[in-house]
């Protein structure tokens, strides 16, 4: 029942983190990553990205992670694509909020690059 996870649409405004996470996901996890620098860029890419999973940073200038998710949900391509949030503000209430928004997982920053892919795969496998 669990289709394998291949393509990830990743949104992160910090170029350094974007590069590191993309590398970790591609080299360690063997995923195909479409990395975007902003919510708007993600909206432009989403229709053609055929993403299996959305990986969104929470704090971004302009459209933030939850805002981006809301906008992506309006697009047919990403109307119900599973989502994982990444955030540096790990507060229990926040985690609960993102989970309530349907997030499979909330990954806290700083993340371990060698374990990031496993963490995402586990969340992917566990989704009901």
């Amino acid at each position, binding site marked *: *029942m*669990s289709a394998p996870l291949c393509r990830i649409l990743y949104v992160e405004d*910090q170029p*350094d*983190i974007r590069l*590191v*996470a993309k*590398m*970790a996901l591609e*080299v*360690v996890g063997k995923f195909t990553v479409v990395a975007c620098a902003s919510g708007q860029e993600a909206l432009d890419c989403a229709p053609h990205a055929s993403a299996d999973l959305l990986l969104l940073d929470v*704090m971004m200038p302009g459209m933030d992670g939850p805002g981006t998710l809301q906008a992506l949900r309006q697009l047919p391509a990403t109307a119900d694509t599973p989502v994982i949030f990444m955030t*540096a*503000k790990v*507060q*229990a*209430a926040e985690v609960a909020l993102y989970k309530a928004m349907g997030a499979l997982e909330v990954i806290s*920053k*700083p*993340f*371990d*690059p*060698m374990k990031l892919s496993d963490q995402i*795969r*586990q*969340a*992917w*496998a*566990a989704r*009901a």
Partner: protein
Amino acid sequence: MLEPMTPPDESDRMRELWELQLLDTPPEERFDRLTRLAQRLFGVRTALVSLVDHDRQWFKSRQGLDAFQTPRTISFCGHAILAEGPLVIQNALLDPRFADNPLVTGPLAIRFYAGMPLLGPKGHKVGTLCLIDPSPREFGTDDVAALRDLAALVMLELANKELTQAMETARESAFRLRQITDTVPALIAYRDQNQRFIFHNKAYEEVLNMGFEQIHGHTIGELLSPQAYGPVHDKAKEVLRGYPVRYERTFVTQKGESRIYDMQYFPRYGDGADADRVIGYFSLGADITELKRIDRMKTEFISTVSHELRTPLTSIRGSLGLVLGGVAGELPEAAKSLVDIANNNCERLIRLINDILDSEKIESGHLRLELKAVDIVQLVRQALAANQGFADQHQVALVLQAPGAPLPIQADSDRLMQVVTNLLSNAVKFSPAGGRVTLAVSRAGQCVRLEVMDKGPGIPEAFQGRIFQKFSQADASDTRQKGGTGLGLNISRALVNKMGGQIGFASQEGKGTTFFCEFPESHAPGAAPLAAAPCAVQPAASRPRILHVEDDPDIRRIVAAMVQGSAAFTSAATLGEARARLGEGRFDLIMLDLALDDGSGWSLFDDIDGLAPRPPVIVFSASDKSPEHASRKVEAVLVKSQASDGELLKAIQSVLRSAGHGQTPDALQSEFQG
């Protein structure tokens, strides 16, 4: 009209009147009962105790008259105090002294007046006991005698200076109390057991935007809207049961500004026979609006700083992790050791930030724990497994001593895990290479006790008193050597206390240290209390891992008890939970029930078949008749009502043995053969 003359002893008379300290004081029953008696006895409309002041007559007690004073110039009493005996005017209209007096011609329409002078203790005539009526009447000798007797009683009361002074003192202290309570910027009130305001200060009037009369004597329920009253009602009920109450409440002021108050209710117990009964409660409210604002700023600041630090750390940790992971190619040995140092210190910085955040949350009271029944035995097993790698690095063996049955306590499992991990990692860090750290769980009286024992150098006695303080480490160089943050024990203690437990330690220099936590045992329904029996177990890493998917908690418990100590046992009640467990770690054996709440156990095979290596599966369910048996790879099938415990164990042993866990069957054998 004839104005009354001034008596010859006027200045002494006035002094005596002042010394009585009765002018402008509230009514007193001791005088009122005498005027009531006079009013009734003589059948007159009005009876007064009138004190003749410099330019007025003031009534200490009055029946049948609204005015509390009238000018001395038009007074009858001014005349009465000039004579020794009573002044009796049977019909004022016929008396040239009073016929045109406004009290006679005006609405009061006085016709009859009889006034008996009242002498102070020093003999001066300070006023009268007088009778007034709008109809003319006769006043005979018997009447005069009766009035004289009553006047004598009034004079006794006038002379009762002690009482007067006591009243004055009480008045003064009441006044002072009111002044103080009205000046203090806090809500202060006393309410009786029916929640009526018996006392309240001005701040209450301001915050409720009501006058004194609107509040005094009313219940809080009458003053507030039903929505606002709801929560207050519960608090009032609680304090009336005898418990002090504290809560926060928001008032909206007249200007529409929200003010947050820290409200406290204190029960007041009665005296004597009521000593055990709450007869009312004091209410105290402090305006904490500003405090809240500052607190919010502090939290926001810490949260922002933590985020700002985490962002660059994410890149650093990520880059170092990838380089060390070989993603950028093989590193020369020297470069690798340098990157290792950078990576370790990066990890430490992250721990430090996490600990500072935790510490702040604890201190500000923002830490929220999700307390529920947690099986501490299962939790310490997980903690042991999670810290195995760290122990291996330090070449320290981890040993578990735990009973076979669950020991439930009320705890937040994530935070309890944090505590156990902290104690374990401390013990490992301070153990010599080749040493052993024992993690023991047992029942101690009504409590569940968790111990972490090491054979390290022990805690120097001089340091033992400060061990739970923030940033305290016995040897300053330890911070660097051991990689701690200096906050771990401080946080652990706060967490344990918040979960209703106690933390402590015993240490002997050169021998080792034991940290222990004690929690009250939770008697959650379904958690069968069983005698604690510590048993030696194999190190977690070498034990086979079994996942048991089963919706019946009793069967889960039975199977768990059977393999306890010889296998790492994980259970899942639903398919969803099973998938989550499969995602979290590798298993050497899966035991599967078929009829689960969220679907058939067969559907889990898609997930199991996708695992590498694929673990063997034992189907352990109510029926062995299913077409799926033929199409799926199943190592063994057992039927619940038919298979004995022994058969089940044998099946587990043989499946594990053929999967290459040679050591395990013996361990299971030896434990369960008897």
